[in-house]
């Protein structure tokens, strides 16, 4: 069960529209390393994990990713609010506009639609947590790439906040992986799936 709070995790107040930048930033909504993929990755993976700490971290980071998705969408929305047809054509936003007007739709900056193949839910906490750590780094790189293109402080500020959260999440997933590995049977040094048929490894 989730309960909506009518506030953003970190404020987004953009005064200057910039549809060209919006088209880049929307990748962090529906792109391969975006917040939608992140939230669904962790919230899908949590059901099969038997470790209570790992179930908690997947639930709570997955939930925070939903709030990050909302922030990215708020940025894209505010960058494309009240555009004129002339601004749309001049900024190259017309290819998105023709299908979605000024609505939010999950796709990458290059126009590739959101796809659940952007993430895995493998039912093995070691496999999943290693993927989760990589995912946080990929998202951090994407925010670094975005920051090189942004000159508006109103946009820079929330993007920097999101970038820092990727680093924290990477740290927490690293701890979760260590917790799982510490609890493994000593003989399971290849770290074979502790959540399924663990007896076979003993």
């Amino acid at each position, binding site marked *: 069960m989730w*309960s*909506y*709070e*009518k*506030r*953003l*995790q*970190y*404020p*987004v*107040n*953009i*005064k200057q529209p910039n549809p060209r930048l919006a088209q880049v930033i929307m990748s962090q909504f529906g792109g391969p390393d975006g917040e939608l993929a992140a939230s669904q990755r962790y919230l899908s993976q949590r059901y099969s994990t038997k470790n209570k*700490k790992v179930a*908690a*971290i997947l639930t*709570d*980071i997955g939930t*925070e990713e939903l709030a990050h998705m*909302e922030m990215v*969408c*708020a940025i894209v*929305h*505010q960058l494309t609010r009240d555009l004129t047809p002339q601004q749309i054509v001049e900024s190259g936003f017309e290819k998105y506009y023709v299908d979605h007007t000024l609505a939010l739709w999950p796709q990458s900056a290059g126009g590739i639609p959101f796809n659940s193949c952007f993430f895995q839910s493998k039912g093995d906490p070691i496999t999943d947590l290693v993927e989760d750590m990589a995912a946080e780094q990929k998202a951090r790189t994407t925010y670094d790439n975005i920051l090189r293109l942004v000159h508006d402080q109103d946009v820079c500020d929330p993007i920097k906040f999101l970038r820092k959260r990727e680093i*924290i*999440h990477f740290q*927490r997933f690293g*701890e*979760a992986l260590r*917790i799982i590995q510490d609890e493994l049977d000593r003989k399971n040094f290849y770290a074979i799936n502790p959540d399924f048929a663990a007896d076979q490894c003993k």
Partner: protein
Amino acid sequence: MDNREKLFACITATSFVLDDLRLFLDTHPTDREALAHWEKLQKVRNEAVEEYTKCYGPINSYDVDVNNKWAWIEEPWPWEGRC
């Protein structure tokens, strides 16, 4: 900054500290310093949310005070920004 903005900024800041502490406590559930910090911030946040809800409207729909109207839809949605 008027009182409403101050209160909202307090909710944003204290909520964020709790968001961050929540993740830390998931992997360090017995850390005394983190637990004490949680307890302190939780109280500040609860008071700020209560006062904001009473004066300016609900942040969470469970807290809507139905006084012949549905206040949940009245205040702007968060993605609209404040400019």
